[in-house]
């Protein structure tokens, strides 16, 4: 019975409450102000509050507010009695949504002597509390956290529970804690260390446990904190033990952190050819490389020679005084700017060089690793032109050879331009690069200055390199005037003689002098050049290395810059000899792993780099920070258009396209005066915004559009802009990106697949013969986890290395019809092409066969006898059982085993190069192991499986319960298989943990897909979360298949029962599902039929339960 009652119904006619209304509106404005100020630090808040407050500006307002908040906090804190000083000295800032809420956390801090900051400040806050971070903050965690620990709120709760301050380390936010590699990272790890995989897996298992325990507050409260600590400790122990694997992994993670922040363009070494061991070392070196710059070269501007992007910090001045000087007056400013830039010349020179010596620079790769390993004493020659920029200019003016000469941009009377390069006579007067011309003239009144002559530089550099390449086939260009030559293979009798002949030739051709250093490695060669200069040569034989280094000041070593030198000085280390006294361990402790090792190695003359590794640039861009002045937005936009043109040209020059675009702006500081240097940038703030687009481009118009948007993000007064830079990163090769990246085409993964197929065949055969021995379980099931994975891995690598992508795909007869049929159409057509069109026939033939194969899943559970009749060797359940029990014993070590035999056909097709460790389909996974894995881990594994193995995907879940059953009871499979599942009829399609419809519908291709997606999402989720995915993938399914009435009926039945289950308790879910269905009914005939069939039923059900019909807009 349903009766209605009403409480005193309150009427609120507006007329009744005139007075209140007035009151309310008055309060209204007040409240708004409060709300805004409360919510953000936005400027609008400041304008609002300053209007009626005594605060002069926003910052004073904020200072006052913070002060007031602190006072409030203090008074509250003193009011709360009997507190324990757990958190004394701790000051937290809560970022975003947390459980418990920030207010509760504040309460805890009050109670236990901590501090709570409402606004983040590097100086007051000691810990940042948050439960979740957006990706952008994770990526740039330093900018967000300012290096402070980012900790989960459970830290506070647990500390209170433990009644003491616990270490925050285990509570660090997973997103931030880089020492917790993700499971997927382990699977995709292409390291030759795979042999330790059992261990890796163990690590995997522990980690999710630990992670799991964090987010659940409720659980944690009950759990004794020490237990958590223990678990964490175990985890850490493991990761310590596994230094070999995980530390490398973390290195990789670390590299993504802002180490390279200051380096505008770091170049990656194309060292894929090498084994991963050396590879890693190389990479480490690669990190350091950009700073690897000999300090005594002719210019002291810290411009890395590897950079393709150039900053113009201080040395710019226009060539002739007639020229227009700024963006204000010169419409072609950008163009002229780069025409007159020396650094631009150095940077773009590399591309020219590469074009000129393409075979030489790329053909080097293969031999490198060999020479590295051999014991032959290597001979490295380092050649460097003497004050290149000056000597080239005066090479035709012999009269000036012994006169002080400098190169600078302009020769104006004020002498405000800077010296870019000076020759040795000039240097003897104390003239250095970067000096103002007027200061230099004061030191040396008869100094002769010249402007740049870029054509000449180009010519000389080309001559220089032709000579080098003539003498040696292994040349690594460092800069336009500097190179390394490797003579190890050339078996040179007397390196000194060779060096002098090269120098002589250079001098005769170019009339410029060069110095050369010879050493056992690149480091020694470079150090030798240093002593050789000017115009000399020096050979440091291995015997003399120690002597030579002993007295060498530390800053002569590459990679030691000003900061590092100062630090070393504090330890009273001035020479390499002193540096050698310090142990490697303490160096690494003091300066970090990589730097420490580098110091240790370099001070002993050890250098593992080898000559000739080609470097790819990671970003391309252009910066202008001289002469940038804008009057209004129009000027700025005009300038940006030109900048885009320049960048686009550079991209085209390198033949690449990019996806991430970063706009950097130098903004004049508020209190900065007009810079001393004419039109310079002065004291500036550096701002940047970036955007990533899905498709790589080099198109000028797209660039311009993006840049315009980016500029909009700055909210900046254009008059304040002193410099602009545009950089493009995430570069892709223009050719390949046009055709779709080579790497991911079917062909290339068939290549890697076929390599492993051989391997598997072997195991397969092996398996059949010994099907009763315990061995087979591991050899069959764990193909990928034992030694073989290592071999496969190598093969794949080798194939990549040899650069020979064509391989034979598996023969037609080995293909699984079912797989082929379910492939997306584009993949199918590609495959068809590979097979020369035979695939279509194959499909047609296979149609009959496929019927039987699709019934395979059924037969497996239904009746083992049928299996035997069909004579399908891979579904014989008896050895299976044995394998399985064997596996069970090992399941704690191995996440992924096998047990299911039906992989034989599958694996031939579906080896995905990416997942070396993962089995190629779910059928290879031990279902019972999978069952025991925590949900989130399961999802990760499922995600990494190829999606197109629809058939066994569905059959596996159906088998799962049976398996477990059979194992625990120990009865034979064939008898014990749950036929009951099949008999469960329509009434309980949604019953059980594993809804029975998934089993029922697997022979219908489209619903099988649904089952698969449902499975992937982890069984217990709701249909509404699965449907969108299914519907969007529905189009990729075999559309040629006709829509059978039966399929529609099944779908309807499924939905009907879902409605029945959910209508009473979760109408929202139903609503969402049907809104989705309705949306897709427009696009798909199938769904429109389903929708129309089921709609009346739905409305009736809603009417029964809610007395109305569902509103479907």
């Amino acid at each position, binding site marked *: *019975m*349903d009766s*209605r*009652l*009403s409480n005193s119904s309150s009427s609120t006619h507006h007329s009744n409450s005139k007075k209140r209304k007035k009151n309310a509106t008055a309060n209204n404005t007040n409240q708004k102000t409060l709300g805004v100020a409360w919510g953000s630090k936005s400027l609008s808040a400041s304008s609002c509050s300053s209007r009626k407050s005594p605060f002069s500006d926003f910052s004073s307002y904020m200072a006052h507010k913070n002060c007031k908040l602190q006072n409030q906090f203090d008074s509250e804190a003193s009011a709360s009695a009997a507190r324990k000083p757990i958190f004394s000295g701790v000051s937290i800032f809560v970022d975003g949504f947390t459980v418990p809420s920030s207010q509760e956390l504040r309460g805890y801090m009050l109670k236990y002597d901590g501090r709570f900051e409402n606004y983040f400040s590097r100086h007051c806050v000691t810990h940042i509390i948050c439960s979740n971070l957006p990706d952008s903050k994770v990526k740039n965690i330093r900018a967000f956290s300012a290096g402070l620990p980012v900790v989960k709120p459970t830290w506070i709760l647990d500390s209170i529970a433990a009644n003491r301050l616990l270490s925050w380390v285990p509570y660090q936010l997973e997103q931030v804690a880089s020492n917790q590699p993700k499971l997927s990272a382990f699977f995709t790890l292409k390291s030759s260390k795979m042999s330790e995989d059992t261990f890796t897996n163990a690590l995997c298992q522990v980690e999710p446990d630990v992670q799991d325990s964090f987010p659940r507050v409720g659980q944690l409260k009950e759990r004794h904190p020490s237990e958590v600590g223990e678990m964490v400790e175990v985890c850490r122990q493991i990761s310590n033990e596994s230094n070999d694997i995980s530390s490398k992994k973390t290195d990789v993670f670390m590299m993504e952190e802002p180490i390279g922040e200051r380096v505008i363009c770091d170049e990656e070494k194309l060292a894929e050819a090498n084994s991963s061991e050396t590879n890693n070392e190389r990479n480490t070196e690669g990190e350091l490389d950009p700073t690897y710059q000999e300090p005594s070269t002719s210019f002291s501007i810290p411009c890395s020679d590897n950079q393709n992007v150039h900053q113009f910090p201080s040395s710019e001045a226009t060539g002739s005084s007639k020229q227009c000087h700024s963006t204000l007056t010169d419409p072609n400013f950008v163009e002229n700017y780069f025409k007159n830039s020396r650094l631009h010349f150095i940077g773009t020179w590399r591309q020219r060089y590469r074009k000129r010596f393409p075979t030489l620079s790329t053909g080097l790769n293969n031999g490198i690793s060999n020479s590295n390993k051999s014991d032959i004493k290597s001979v490295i020659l380092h050649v460097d032109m003497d004050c290149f920029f000056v000597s080239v200019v005066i090479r035709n003016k012999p009269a000036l050879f012994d006169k002080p000469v400098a190169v600078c941009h302009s020769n104006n009377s004020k002498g405000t331009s800077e010296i870019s390069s000076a020759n040795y006579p000039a240097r003897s007067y104390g003239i250095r690069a970067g000096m103002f011309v007027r200061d230099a003239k004061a030191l040396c009144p008869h100094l002769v200055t010249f402007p740049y002559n870029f054509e000449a530089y180009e010519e000389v550099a080309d001559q220089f390199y032709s000579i080098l390449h003539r003498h040696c086939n292994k040349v690594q260009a460092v800069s336009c005037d500097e190179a390394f030559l490797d003579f190890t293979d050339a078996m040179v009798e007397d390196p000194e003689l060779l060096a002098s002949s090269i120098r002589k030739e250079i001098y005769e051709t170019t009339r410029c002098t060069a110095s050369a250093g010879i050493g056992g490695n690149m480091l020694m060669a470079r150090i030798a050049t240093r002593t050789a200069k000017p115009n000399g040569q020096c050979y440091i034989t291995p015997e003399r290395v120690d002597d030579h280094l002993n007295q060498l000041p530390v800053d002569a070593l590459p990679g030691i810059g000003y900061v590092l030198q100062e630090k070393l000085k504090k330890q009273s280390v001035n020479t390499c000899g002193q540096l050698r006294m310090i142990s490697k361990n303490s160096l690494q402790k003091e300066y970090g792993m990589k730097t420490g090792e580098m110091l240790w190695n370099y001070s002993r003359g050890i250098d593992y780099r080898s000559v000739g590794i080609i470097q790819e640039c990671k970003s391309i861009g252009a910066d202008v920070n001289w002469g940038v002045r804008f009057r209004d937005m129009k000027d700025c936009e005009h300038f940006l258009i030109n900048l885009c043109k320049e960048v686009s040209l550079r991209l085209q020059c390198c033949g690449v396209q990019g996806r991430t675009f970063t706009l950097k702006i130098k903004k004049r500081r508020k209190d900065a005066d007009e810079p001393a240097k004419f039109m310079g940038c002065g004291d500036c703030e550096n701002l940047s915004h970036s955007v990533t687009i899905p498709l790589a481009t080099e198109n000028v118009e797209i660039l311009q559009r993006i840049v315009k948007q980016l500029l909009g993000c700055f909210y900046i007064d254009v008059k304040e802009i002193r410099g602009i830079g545009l950089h493009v990163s995430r570069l892709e090769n223009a050719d390949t990106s046009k055709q779709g990246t080579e790497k991911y085409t079917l062909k290339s993964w068939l290549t890697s697949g076929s390599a492993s197929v051989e391997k598997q065949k072997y195991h397969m055969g092996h398996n059949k013969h010994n099907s009763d021995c315990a061995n087979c379980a591991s050899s069959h099931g764990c193909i990928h986890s034992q030694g073989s994975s290592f071999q496969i891995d190598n093969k794949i690598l080798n194939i990549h290395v040899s650069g020979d992508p064509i391989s034979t795909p598996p023969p037609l007869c080995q293909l699984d019809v079912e797989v082929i049929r379910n492939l997306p159409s584009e993949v199918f057509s590609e495959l068809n092409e590979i097979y020369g069109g035979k695939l279509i026939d194959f499909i047609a033939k296979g149609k009959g066969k496929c019927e039987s194969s699709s019934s395979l899943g059924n037969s497996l559970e239904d009746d083992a006898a049928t299996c035997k009749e069909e004579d399908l060797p891979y579904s014989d359940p008896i050895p299976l059982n044995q394998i399985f029990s064997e596996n069970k014993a090992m399941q704690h070590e191995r996440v992924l085993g096998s047990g299911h035999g039906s992989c034989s056909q599958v694996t031939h097709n579906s080896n995905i190069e990416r997942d070396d460790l993962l089995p190629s389909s779910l059928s290879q996974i031990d279902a019972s192991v999978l069952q025991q894995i925590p949900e989130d881990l399961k999802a990760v594994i499922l995600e990494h499986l190829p999606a197109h193995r629809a058939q066994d995907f569905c059959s596996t879940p159906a088998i799962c319960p049976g398996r477990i059953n059979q194992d625990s009871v120990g009865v034979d499979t064939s008898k014990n298989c749950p036929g009951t599942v099949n008999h469960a009829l329509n009434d309980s399609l949604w019953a059980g943990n594993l809804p029975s419809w998934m089993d029922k519908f697997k022979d219908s291709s489209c619903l099988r897909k649904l089952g698969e997606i449902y499975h992937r999402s982890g069984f217990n989720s709701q249909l509404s979360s699965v449907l969108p995915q299914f519907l969007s993938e529905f189009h990729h399914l075999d559309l040629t298949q006709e829509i059978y009435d039966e399929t529609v009926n099944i779908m309807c039945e499924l939905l009907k029962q879902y409605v029945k289950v959910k209508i009473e308790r*979760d*109408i929202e879910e139903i609503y969402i599902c049907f809104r989705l269905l309705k949306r897709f009914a427009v696009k798909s005939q199938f769904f429109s039929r389903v929708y129309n069939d089921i709609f009346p039923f739905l409305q009736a059900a809603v009417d029964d339960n809610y007395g109305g019909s569902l509103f479907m807009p």
Partner: protein
Amino acid sequence: MQRKENETPQGQAASVLVEFLEVAITAVVFLKGVYPSGAFERRRYMNVVVQRARHPQLRYYIHATVSGLLPFLQKGMVDRVAVVFFNTDNVPLEKFIFKLTVNQSYGSSVEGVDLQISLRSFLAKLSVSESLTKKLPPDCRWEITGNFQLLPETGTSKEANFWIPTDTKQWEQPLFITPIRSMSSDPLCLQFYIEHPSLSESSVL
């Protein structure tokens, strides 16, 4: 949010629910804009920002009504709680309905945090649901009604006397349902949806 330990799970759920209803009803009233927005102030409940009525009478009405429901909620007698909006002719225009099911046989204790998270999602969803609702004409009235499964006998308790039977203001035309949010957990199961008359009718209004 501290609760007594000796309460039954239903009791716990009911007291959380009462608190929640008070906030949610205020949110509905705020959402419909019956009063100027200045009549509300921002507060934090369950770690989300909500509105609270500033006017004592309004606050009292909502508070008293909902807390009057508490004993009945505990017994599981309340079927639904509705916030009904009328036009000047007392014709209902829109109803916001909380349909409740309290599982009386549920034994174990209530996980406060879980319940909070679920209820919070109602508030979050509600705050963005304005587009689902109809625009109300100016000068309308509203009231809170409760649908009981049985009539509480007057005199059995003090609270029961507050509730007076009311004539059912039924929809005169077929009605439509727009679900906003559902939650089904033990012991509390809550559906929140809007009822409004069919479109043809609304165009007449």
